[in-house]
C-alpha cells in the first residue's frame, strides 16, 4: 500500500508541475488542482498509513489511526477548493477582457518596455 500511495502522490505532483509550466490559464489551474490533490493525499499519509483503525478513543481497542492529519486535510481541501473557484473566476474575467489567456506578462507592443518581470 505504501508503494501505491507514494507513487500516486508522485504521479499527481509530476503531472501538476508539468501543467503548471504550460503558462496558459486553463492548464495551470488544472495543474494546481492536481497539486492540491497530491498534497491532500500526502497530508493523509503524514500521520502514518493505518487500515481499519478508528481515529477516536473507544473501549477495548489498542490500535488507532492519527486523527490530526484528517483535520488538516479537511482544512486544506476547503481552502484549495474555494481558491480554485476564485482563480477560475478571475482568470475567466481576465480572458474575456483581454482575449488572451497567458499567465505570464506579455510585452506591450506599442512601446519598447522590456519585461524584466516575466
Amino acid at each position: 500500500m505504501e508503494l501505491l500511495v507514494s507513487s500516486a502522490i508522485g504521479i499527481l505532483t509530476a503531472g501538476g508541475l508539468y501543467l503548471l509550466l504550460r503558462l496558459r490559464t486553463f492548464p495551470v489551474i488544472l495543474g494546481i488542482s492536481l497539486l492540491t490533490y497530491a498534497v491532500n493525499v500526502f497530508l493523509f499519509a503524514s500521520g502514518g498509513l493505518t487500515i481499519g483503525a478508528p481515529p477516536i478513543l473507544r473501549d477495548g481497542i489498542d490500535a488507532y489511526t492519527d486523527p490530526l492529519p484528517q483535520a488538516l486535510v479537511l482544512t486544506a481541501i476547503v481552502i484549495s477548493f474555494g481558491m480554485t473557484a476564485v482563480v477560475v473566476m478571475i482568470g475567466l474575467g481576465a480572458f474575456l477582457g483581454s482575449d488572451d489567456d497567458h499567465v505570464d506578462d506579455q510585452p506591450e507592443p506599442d512601446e519598447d518596455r522590456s519585461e524584466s518581470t516575466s
Partner: protein
Amino acid sequence: MTHWIVLPIILPALVAPFIVLAARYHIGIQRVLSVAGVLALIAAACGLALQSADGTITLYQMGDWAAPFGIVLVGDRLSTMMVLLTAVLALFVLLYAIGSGWDDRGRHFHALFQFQLMGIMGAFLTGDLFNLFVFFEVLLIASYALMIHAGGNARLRAGVQYVLFNLIGSTLFLFALGSIYAETGTLNMADLAHRVALIGPEETVGIRVAAVLLLLVFAIKAAIVPLHFWLPSSYAEAPAPVAALFAIMTKVGAYAIIRVYTMIFPPELEVTAGLHDTWLLPAALVSLALGMVGVLAAKRLDRLVAFSVIGSMGMVMVSISLFTPAGIAAALYYIVHSTLAGATLFLISDLVRTGRADLKLTQQPTIAGNSLTAALFFVGAIAMAGLPPLSGFLGKLLVLDAAFDSNLVVWIWVIVLTSSLISILGFARAGSILFWKAHSVERGDDIEMMSPPATLSYVAVGGLVSLLVAHTVFAGQVHRYTSTMAAQLFAPEPYISTVLDTPGKLSKPKGDH
C-alpha cells in the same frame, strides 16, 4: 489569563461581516466603522506592546486547551511590535483610501480590508505552524479580492498571476507542514523546537527537506530572488492603498523566517546548518542588487516603487540571514523603516497618477499639486534609497555594522553600497523627469489641469512621512528595543516553557456511559 491578545484577530473579524451585512450600500457608515475598528486595533496593539515590553510572554489558549493539543496565540516583543506596526500602517492607508475615493470604486473595500488585517494579525500572533498557514490563507484570500478591487483588464491579468503564484506557495506550505508532521508528530512551534533538537544525526532527511520547503514558502512571501516574480506586476497594478497595505505582507514572510529559524531551526542546529549562510544570504544579496537595478531600469513609477520594495526586502533578508542578535536587531529596525517607506512611496505614486495620463516616466505637463507631491516624493525617495538624514541611512549603517563578523562581509558591503548608489540614481532620474522637467513641457489648450488630490490624502501621506521622521529621531530607543527583541528571540526558553508548561483545562471523562 488575559483575553486582550485575541482582540487584534477578533475585532476585524467582527467588524468585517458587520460592514457587509449592515452597511453594504452606505459608504459613509462603512468608512466610520472601518476607521473606528482600526483605531480600536491601534489601542489594543499599544496595550499588548506595553504589556510585552518588559519581556513578558503572553499566552492565550484557544478554548482553554493546553499546548501542544490546543491552538495557542503567543505575544512576545517581536509579534506585538509587528501587530502595532500593522495597525498604525492600516490607519494611514485607510485614511488615504477614503481621501482619494479608492474605497468607493468597488463595494467591499472596507470589509476586505478588515479581513486582510485579521489575517496579518493572526499570522503575527499565532504559535502554531498550521494556524500560520490558515492565517496566511485568510490574508491571501482577502488580498486576492483587494488586488482586483475596482477591476480593469491589466489589474485582472496581474491578479491571475498573483493568485496562481500564491496558490503554488500555499501548496508548498502544505507539503512542508506534512513532512514536518510526519517527522515530529506536532505542529506547535514551541513543541517543535524541543522535538527537532532530539532528532538523531542519522535520520535527518525528512526534517531537512521540510526546513528547506518551509524556507521556500516564506521566501515566496518575502519576495526573495528568484521567487520574487509575482511582486512587480501585482504591486504595480494593485490599487495604491492596497499596494501600500501589501508593504506589510512581504514582512509577514520575513517575520515567519525570523520566528521559525530562531526557534525551531536555530542557527546552531546541525540539521539545518548552512541553510542561512550558504543559501539565504547570497539570495538576499541578489534580491538587493536586482531590486535596486530594477529601480533604475523601471519605466513606470509604480514598477519603480515595486522594485524598490524587492530591494529593501533584500536588505532586510541580508541582515536576517546573518542570524546574529545584532543582525536580527538591525533587520527589525529596517523592517519598520521599509514598511513605512514602501507604503509612502506607493501612496505618492497614486498622488502622481491623479494628475497624469499614466505613470510612465516620460515628460508630461506638471501635475496638480506638483510642489507638495514633489516634496513628499523627495522625502520618500531619500528614505527608501537610504540617504542621510532619514531612517533608511541609519538602518543601512546598522546592517553594515552587523555584517562585520560574516564571512561574506566584503560582498555585503560592496553590494549594499553599490546598490544604494544605483537606487539613488534611479530615484533622482524618476523625480527629475516627473517633477522638474514637467515645467518645460507646454500644456496643450485642450488639456485641463486636473483638480489636486484631496487634503485627506496628503494628511495620510504626511502622517506616514512623519512616522518615518519619528523612526529616525527615536532611532536610539527603537534600536535598543529591537536589540532586546533579538535577545528574546535567541533565548527562546521562556517562550517555550510558557507555551508548553501552562496547564489548560483537563479533559476528564464524565463517568461511564
